[in-house]
Structure formats: structure tokens, C-alpha cells
């Protein structure tokens, strides 16, 4: 194996790496929008909203992402006359719809897991349906969604390799091209992209951990070091109760 050739070829990975990052970031962002739209729609109590959303989710989940990718790239332009100017958009949309449909179940599940009492309290305070969702349900459901959404984001990164099949020059496409040249072995190039995918996945994972921690702080489940600023915060339960009881008696007099 000629590693010096591989090392020499590394700068050439910069542009394909940017393509992989672009596809992953754009598809993840769009997938999140799709996930929330479908997750909210499948949580709806109105059948006319719920049924088409459910059907769409099942259709997407029940078919192969590779087939969808080819369908968007080659069948849709013929059948519907829709032609995207940039092939990268085809890859982004196909991946976003696929992972958005899967992730919508995470959104739906997290919404369903918010205790019923929270909605009842929101009704007692006369919030509208929209206010209940925006102020009460989604802020509580969001931290629950993050770990699963993180897994889907990493899966989407890895699935982004499939866009090489419709001619998008991402790192997989590039490794395949370089490794297929006469006198070259594909193995070192595949090893390079293996490391790149791993590093990218690790970055996503680290970012999501940070996001999860931030989200948990927003529902009061902060790490102990965050609580040190509040001298009473470590004295939970009955201990706090006793001190404030004394104060209440003083205050009401």
C-alpha cells in the first residue's frame, strides 16, 4: 500500500468534504423541519390532518432510501417534470424526507410523553392550543427528543454517502474515484473516509450533547456545578421546606 500517494491526495478531499458537510447539514436542518411538521401532524386530534401525515410517514419508512434517491433524481423529472438545477438539492431533499419521516416518530413520541396534567394545567390557565404547544409541550418534549435526533443525525451523515450514487462528488465519491484509478488500491482511500466519517460523527455527537445539556438546564435539570450559584439549590426537599416555612409565617403576619 502506497501511503505517500494517499497523503499527497489528502488536500484533494477538502472540496468533497465540504460537499459531505453541506449535504449533511442542509439535509439535517430540513429533516428537522419535516420531523416537526409530520410529528405535530401525526399528533393532531383531527383525522384529516393525522391520516395523510401518517400515510406519508409509512410510505417513506416502508421504502428504501436508495430507491427514493434514484426516484427523486431520475423518475421525478420524467413523471412530474420537476428538474432541480443542482443535483445536490436532490440528495438533500431525499435524505431529509427519509430521515424527517423517521424522526417524526421521535417528535410524536416526545409530545405524547408530556404528562397529561401539564395540558390540563394549561387549559385551567386558559392557554390556546397553540400557546399550550409553544409554551408548555414543546419546551418539555424537546430535551427528550435530542438523544434520538442525535442518532438520526449521525445515521444521516453516514447515509449521505449514498448521494455519490447519483453523481454528487462527496468524500465517498472521491475515495471511490481515486481508489479506482489504475495502480491504486481502494483500501487506503476507504480508510481515509472512514476516519473522516468517524470524526464528523463525533462532532455531531459532541454538539448534540452540548445541546442536550442546554435543553435540560432549561427545564431545571442542570448539572450540579450550574447550581452552585444558588446557595439554596443544593438543599432540596424538606430542608428547603423548613426554612421557607419559617419565612412564610413571618411574612403572612
Amino acid at each position, binding site marked *: 500500500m502506497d501511503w505517500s500517494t494517499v497523503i499527497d491526495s489528502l488536500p484533494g478531499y477538502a472540496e468533497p468534504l465540504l460537499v459531505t458537510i453541506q449535504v449533511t447539514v442542509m439535509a439535517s436542518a430540513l429533516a428537522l423541519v419535516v420531523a416537526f411538521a409530520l410529528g405535530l401532524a401525526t399528533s393532531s386530534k383531527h383525522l384529516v390532518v393525522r391520516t395523510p401525515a401518517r400515510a406519508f410517514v409509512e410510505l417513506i419508512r416502508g421504502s428504501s432510501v436508495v430507491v427514493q434517491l434514484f426516484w427523486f433524481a431520475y423518475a421525478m423529472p420524467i413523471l412530474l417534470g420537476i428538474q432541480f438545477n443542482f443535483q445536490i438539492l436532490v440528495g438533500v431533499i431525499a435524505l431529509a424526507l427519509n430521515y424527517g419521516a423517521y424522526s417524526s416518530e421521535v417528535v410524536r413520541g416526545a409530545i405524547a410523553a408530556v404528562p397529561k396534567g401539564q395540558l390540563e*394545567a394549561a387549559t385551567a390557565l*386558559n392557554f390556546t392550543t397553540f400557546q399550550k404547544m409553544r409554551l408548555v409541550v414543546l419546551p418539555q418534549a424537546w430535551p427528550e427528543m435530542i438523544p434520538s435526533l442525535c442518532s438520526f443525525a449521525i445515521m444521516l451523515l453516514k447515509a449521505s454517502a449514498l448521494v455519490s450514487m447519483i453523481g454528487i462528488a462527496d468524500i465517498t465519491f472521491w475515495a471511490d474515484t481515486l481508489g479506482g484509478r489504475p495502480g491504486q488500491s481502494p483500501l487506503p482511500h476507504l480508510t481515509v473516509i472512514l476516519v473522516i466519517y468517524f470524526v464528523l460523527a463525533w462532532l455531531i455527537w459532541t454538539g448534540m450533547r452540548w445541546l442536550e445539556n442546554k435543553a435540560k438546564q432549561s427545564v431545571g435539570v442542570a448539572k450540579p456545578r450550574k447550581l452552585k450559584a444558588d446557595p439554596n439549590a443544593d438543599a*432540596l426537599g424538606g430542608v428547603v421546606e423548613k426554612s421557607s416555612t419559617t419565612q412564610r409565617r413571618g*411574612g*403572612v403576619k
Partner: protein
Amino acid sequence: MLSPTTDTDPIIRFDRVNKSFGDLDVLKGLSFEIGAGERVTLIGPSGSGKTTILRLLMTLELVTPVKDPDDNGGVIWVEGKPYSHMEKGGKLHVASERYLRQRRQKVGMVFQQFNLFPNMKVLRNVTEAQVHTLKRSKEEAESKARELLDLVGLSDKVDNYPNQLSGGQQQRVAIARALAMDPDILLLDEVTSALDPELVADVLGVLRDVADTTNITMLIVTHEMGFARDVSNRVMMFDQGVIVEEDTPDKIFSDPQEVRTQDFLRAVLAE
């Protein structure tokens, strides 16, 4: 026929109200009236329909519709106007969500499980609905919230999240949150049942203060008989969705007439 609104109307009137869950009839043609400013305690074994009455008043449950409610009842009236139903073309129809939203504004509820919003700090728990549903300014809502949190003895906890408070403290915040909406009617659903015994007294102390210093109509479901005796003007004993007996707390607790009331009180007091 629709009842005309007069000053002498009771604040709450149940007119032959039915409520079923599937095959289970919880309330069967229940009728009673509650005057403005009255404090009424509902007692009775579990499954007797007490909590259902509060949930119907909070519109968390809807009455089971009856054919031709103008003649056959099945309607809850609040402040002299239909509450579970609305008038349309001179007739009563089951209320729409929009109508319920407009009418439930003056009703507040404190829950057994507190149901504070864990994603909001204590102050925001008490201000959020004032801002969003009463359209008060943020400053006005905060001032009101601080005043009420002071009343419940938690002015030093405004920046804590609910899960940093004990159950008793959470329930006191929930009381402040309900009072911040200036309700005419306050529903208290077993507000001390989820608390450790040593925390019950503080919550009841706050409610006694509220009862002493306001004229809010209160409907209380509780197993705290001492509290019921102190605070309420009237006690209603329920069993299987009907009122078995009702009277002043003194009469009910010292000289209950019905066997079912006697049995229930004996069982509760023996706990």
C-alpha cells in the same frame, strides 16, 4: 326554557347533569347550586364523582349531552349563564371550544399533582398565563406574581425551577398561579393528597389565608376533615354520583344523618 340572568342567581348551578365514561355513569342527573362566595367541600368515597364535578367546571371533561337540554337539563350554569352549553337561536347547544375558552377565564384550579410547568422558573409559572391570556403587561404580571408568592411564603424562590422545590412549596406556587388569574371560582382537587404529612399544614395554612381574605367561591375536594370543617360553609356527601347528604360542616361531622355518611366519616377518621 332558558333561565333569565338575575342578581340572585347562584354562581354555579348543576341542572340534572350527566357524565359517563363509556358504560360507567359517574354522574346521574346531578343537580345542586352554589352561591357566590360560598365554600363547599365535597366528600365521599373514591369514584363517587367529586373530582369529576371539579373537572367539568374546569372544562377538562365535557358533560354527556342530553337530548333537548332546554327541557331536559344536563347543563351547567355559571354566573347565570349556560357554561357547558351555549345559546344559539334561543336554544342551548353543546359549547364550542371557543365559547369554553371565553367562559373558563373566571375559574381556576389547583391540582393534586401541582402540575407546575417544569420548563419555567417559579416566577414565570405565575406570570405566563397572566401575560398570554389576561394580556397583562410583563411588569404588572410580575408585580402580581411577587405579591402572591410573598403571600404563600415563597418570595425567595422566584428564580428556582419547580423541581428544585419540595412538594409543599410546589403546591403553594400552584395556588399562587391560580390566584394570579383573579378567579371568581377556585377548584381545589385533593391538593394535599400527594404531600408528605409534615408539608400538609403549610398548604392548608395558605388556603385558610385565602379563604379568610378573599370572597372567592371555593369548591374543595379533600380528605382533610379538619380543614373542611374550618373553611367550608357547606359539606356535600357524594356516593355513586348523587348527593347523599348536605349540611353545615358542624352538622355533617358531628351528627351525620345517613348511614353512608356515617360509614365514610368513620373510615376516613380511622385513617
